[in-house]
């Protein structure tokens, strides 16, 4: 329980939490203290010293960002002495700051400019020290990717260091010594920046020292219109502002008052150029013939009229807006009166929420993760799947120090650097961990009185190291990663997770990660509720000839099936109708293509993994209508009028339906498919959430192709070096990938990332599976 203390600020008495710093207390009560380096995102740094205040009884001014409030404290935030002190600091900064505002991207929103204005600096006693027109001496990092650093503009507030360390938990930046006694921000190892390229350092930099290369010299800050919207790359639902000028997105910013506290990842911040990709689909086309909208509507309704209704099937990519998603569902349920429809969320979170009982399936805010005593991250590398959850964990464990972290995965990941308790299992042995954990919980007396408790059995997996923490914790965040759920035995994993959730019912909050931005919206719209058809049975249905027309809404067949499987679908289905924004392998084989606008060009809502209904706003013009409008017209042509009133979503936060409380019996008999020396895993890169996300500059520059992660030992044994091409063979198929030696990889395990254009890892794992035993050989003569 937080204690309240009374303090006096400028003679006025306030009651504030004892945990707060003076700066926080003052800001809460509307008292302004200037501060440059402080931000709630990463806490106090104490570098700028401008927030110094006078405290009664103290000789020297204290930094209000670092000093905690104490009972009876008397604080003065403004006095001639303080003003002088602050001015001295500004003089210092001004002395070395080059006269470059005219060409600096930050001009107009620069905090150094603001503070100069605020203090109305009219002289600088130190200005004689430097000639403002001399050539600056600091390093300019032209060689870094995406991010540009100019040390001359830096005022050494160390915000970038703090955000890189305490928010992103990457910690590549530091204030390092250069020749003489000069200090500069640089990478710790002095090599060119090689990081997550999230651009958080750009977003916090008060001056133009850290800037985005993609935005450089494109526009001035005040020329752009900020359109608030929701990021459409993963289901985090980060709030951001698209900065638009002349119908073009020039950069992406975010504000500190958003739920994501201005944090954005590489995709959100730098990948906006997807919206003007040359691979946007612009025309309606039928069998490679370009049509106008009316003709397309007529042709499509003819196709649909000629197909027996029960032979029309639909798959939603779970990437479209909630409105499109619901309209698609309505189109099938009402116009076509069938339920032959599923979405790609059924490949992962659909499994979990099918089994997760109603009593524990509430969707919680990510900010609750930071407040949890214990965070259990299971089944994937969350930093690659959803950076925002990773940052919430980092905030809890590193900044607020409220949370302990347990990481259950087959590999050491970034969150293990937070001092987590590592639980390592072999890939494919997820169930061992889950069942032992459930069994251990049962043994500790959790879940007493639940039916079917006896059916829980343990395994030899040792979870004793974490049980103490679990018992102590009153508030547990349990994060289930997409990688685990995408396994072929994902349903069993989902059941096992449900058991654990139920056992820890009173103190657990379950989160699931998804790379599909509207996956939770698709669940909310009851996709996957059909008893007959599910996405996993697509191939089976196609082979049996049950599908005559297949409608894909933003679903790229090659992003969840192997090339062969996609070909089978193509060959056995008469008509493939594709609603999509971007050209893909699927658009090459589809009969009819209906363009739909990218999320930056339409208004609507996305539902994120917190269950929040987030608005998206149209930022750039585009001359194709939303999918729902097209579907409504199509439906009218087919003789059924859909009502757009139903598309309106009034709730701010959604809840999902779930089954009654039940302990599931788990079938642990699963072995990894195939045979081979290595275990191959298809997992995720933080730079892709789909194939089309690679069409943008930010993601492409950060990672251009899928690479094969391999342990050092294995690489040496086979004679592979970084950059060599390796062939991976399984299931009679093979893929070739460049090698990257990863010291954290366990022995005999290989991993490659999905959704890159250079390869499709599903070719060897098969669709709806991401794990296979494979053989590895070094390719002769590079790629064919």
């Amino acid at each position, binding site marked *: 329980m937080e204690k309240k203390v009374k303090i006096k600020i400028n003679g006025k008495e306030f009651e504030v939490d004892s945990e707060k710093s003076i700066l926080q207390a003052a800001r809460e009560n509307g008292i302004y203290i200037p501060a440059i380096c402080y931000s709630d995102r990463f806490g106090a740094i104490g570098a700028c010293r401008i927030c110094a205040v006078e405290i009664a009884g103290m000789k020297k001014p204290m930094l209000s960002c670092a000093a905690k409030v104490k009972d009876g404290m008397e604080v003065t935030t403004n006095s001639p002495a303080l003003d002088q002190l602050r001015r001295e600091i500004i003089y210092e900064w001004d002395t070395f*700051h080059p006269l470059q505002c*005219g060409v600096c991207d930050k*001009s*107009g929103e*620069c905090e*150094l400019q603001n503070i*100069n204005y605020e203090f109305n600096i*009219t002289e600088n006693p130190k200005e004689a020290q430097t000639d403002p027109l001399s050539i600056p001496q600091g390093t300019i990092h032209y060689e870094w990717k995406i991010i540009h650093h100019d040390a001359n503009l830096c005022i050494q507030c160390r915000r970038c260091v703090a955000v890189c360390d305490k928010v992103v938990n990457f910690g590549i930046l530091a204030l390092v010594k250069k020749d003489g006694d000069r200090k500069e921000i640089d990478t710790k190892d002095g090599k060119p920046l090689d990081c997550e390229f999230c651009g958080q350092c750009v977003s916090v930099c008060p001056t133009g020292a850290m800037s985005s290369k993609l935005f450089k010299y494109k526009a001035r800050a005040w020329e752009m219109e900020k359109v608030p919207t929701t990021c459409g790359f993963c289901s985090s639902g980060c709030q951001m502002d698209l900065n638009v000028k002349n119908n073009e997105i020039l950069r992406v910013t975010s504000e500190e008052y958003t739920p994501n506290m201005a944090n954005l990842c590489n995709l959100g911040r730098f990948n906006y150029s997807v919206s003007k990709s040359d691979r946007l689909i612009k025309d309606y086309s039928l069998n490679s013939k370009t049509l106008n909208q009316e003709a397309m509507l007529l042709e499509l309704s003819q196709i649909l009229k000629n197909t027996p209704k029960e032979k029309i099937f639909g798959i939603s990519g779970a990437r479209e807006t909630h409105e499109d998603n619901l309209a698609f569902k309505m189109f099938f349920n009402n116009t076509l009166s069938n339920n032959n429809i599923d979405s790609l969320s059924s490949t992962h979170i659909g499994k979990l929420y099918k089994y997760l009982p109603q009593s524990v399936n509430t969707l919680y805010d990510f900010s609750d993760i930071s407040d949890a005593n214990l965070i259990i991250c299971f089944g994937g590398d969350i930093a690659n799947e959803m950076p925002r959850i990773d940052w919430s964990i980092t905030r809890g464990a590193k900044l607020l120090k409220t949370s302990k972290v347990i990481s259950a995965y087959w590999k050491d990941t970034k969150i293990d650097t937070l001092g987590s308790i590592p639980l390592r299992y072999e890939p494919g042995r997820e169930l061992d961990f889950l069942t032992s954990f459930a069994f251990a919980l049962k043994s500790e007396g959790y879940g007493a009185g639940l039916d079917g408790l006896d059916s829980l059995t343990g395994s030899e997996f040792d979870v004793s190291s974490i049980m103490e923490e679990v018992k102590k914790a009153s508030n547990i965040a349990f994060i289930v990663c997409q990688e685990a759920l995408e396994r072929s035995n994902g349903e069993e994993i989902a059941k096992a997770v449900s058991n654990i959730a139920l056992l820890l019912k009173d103190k657990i909050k379950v989160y699931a990660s998804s790379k599909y931005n509207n996956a939770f919206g698709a669940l909310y719209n009851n996709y996957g509720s059909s008893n007959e058809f599910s996405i996993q049975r697509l191939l089976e249905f196609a082979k049996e000839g049950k599908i005559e027309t297949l409608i894909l809404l933003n679903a790229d067949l090659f992003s969840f099936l192997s090339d062969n499987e996609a070909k089978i679908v193509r060959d056995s289905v008469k008509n493939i109708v594709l609603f999509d924004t971007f050209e893909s392998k699927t658009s090459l084989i589809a009969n009819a293509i209906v363009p739909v606008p990218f999320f930056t060009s339409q208004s609507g809502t996305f539902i994120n993994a917190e269950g929040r209904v987030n608005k998206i706003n149209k930022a750039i013009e585009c001359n194709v209508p939303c999918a729902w409008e097209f579907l409504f017209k199509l439906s009218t042509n087919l003789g059924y009028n859909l009502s757009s009133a139903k598309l309106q979503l009034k709730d701010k936060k959604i809840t999902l339906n779930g089954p009654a409380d039940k302990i599931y019996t788990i079938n642990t008999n699963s072995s990894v498919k195939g045979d081979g020396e290595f275990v191959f895993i298809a997992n995720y890169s933080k730079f892709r959430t789909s194939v089309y996300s690679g069409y943008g500059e930010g993601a492409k520059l950060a990672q251009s192709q899928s690479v094969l992660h391999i342990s050092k030992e294995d690489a040496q044994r086979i004679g592979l070096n970084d950059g060599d091409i390796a062939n991976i063979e399984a299931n009679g198929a093979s893929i070739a990938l460049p090698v990257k030696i990863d010291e954290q990889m366990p022995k005999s395990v290989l991993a490659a990332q999905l959704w890159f254009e250079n390869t499709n890892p599903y070719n060897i794992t098969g669709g709806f599976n991401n794990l296979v035993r494979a053989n590895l050989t070094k390719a002769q003569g590079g790629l064919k």
Partner: protein
Amino acid sequence: MNKTYVVENEREVIVNMGPQHPSTHGVLRFVVKLDGEKIVESDPDVGYLHRGFEKFAENMTYQQFMPFTDRLDYLASMNNNFAYAMAVEKLLGISSQIPKRAEYIRVIMAELGRIASHLVWLATHALDIGAMTVFLYCFREREYILDMYEMACGNRLTYNYIRIGGVARDLPDGFLDKLKEFVKLFPSKVKEYHTLLSKNRIWLKRTKGIGYISKQDAINWGIAGPCTRGSGIDWDLRRDMPYSVYPELDFEIPVYHNCDVYDRYLVRMDEMIQSNRILEQCIEKIPDGPVMMKDSPYVWDPKEDIMKKNYALMKHFVKVVQGIKAPPGETYFGAENPKGELGFYIYSNGEGVPYRMKIRSPSFINLSAMPVMLKGHYIADIISVIGSLDFVFGECDR
């Protein structure tokens, strides 16, 4: 939008004048209901020049709005600049810190503007009534003033010369000499106008007793400027709610009591002489010194500093891009302009732009009282009343 008039008997006619009519100064439309030739009712229809200045003002910084004020009363742009600068300075609380030289320059410009505006008024007023010659005389002198303006700021119509915190640049060499010459010459010119008009029988017939508005009505209808003084009200903001350096100057307020077009004519004629007196004194009294405030958070730094000193450059960016952060509060400032009281009501909430700005324009209010003045007169008198009210539509419609 016009009133719907009902014709009650066959003698009544409804006549539509304008919006394109040679004697409506600008785009004024007038709907009059006549009984024979007598005006029964009239309804001025304005808004043809509405450009939404108040909405503009809410969306731009204080400095950015200065050129817009040029386009209010475009016959006296300097006076508008002056009034707006004073209004913002009052809001910022820096009225007393404006350099003396700048204040004198502003007064010189404003009084020259008053003379120039009155000259145009006299020229067109006489032209409308039928005296062609006056027009040529007046424009001759006005040209002289415009030349002086051009010397000072390079423009002849929209000056954008006065700044918040001072004036844009100092007077050029030779300006004061030229002004001296003008001041010496001008009273004799005014005499010339008098000889042309004041005792002219046609002029007297067309103006005496026309457009009557009583003292009480004039106050109640909010009429401002020379028109009030022609109705016997002794009121001039320069003297009664003094601003700038007017308290240091000696001038009289001409007042006439017959409340008609002729008296309003006399007021303006006398005002030109008084303005001339003010100019004379300004030439004597103008001190040396800076023409722009320095080191104020509300005023732009000099260009030389911006080019050489990074703090000045940085501040300049903030001031230009985000606007000067005026303290929250509301002020009204009215200045005595040639047409009457031009006032700016500014509601600031502490941001770089005014939250609301109302422009109290004399033309608008004066025009609203026109139906009162016209009642019972002949249709031809509309022309002389319009002339005597001296409105400009840039200001009326904003």
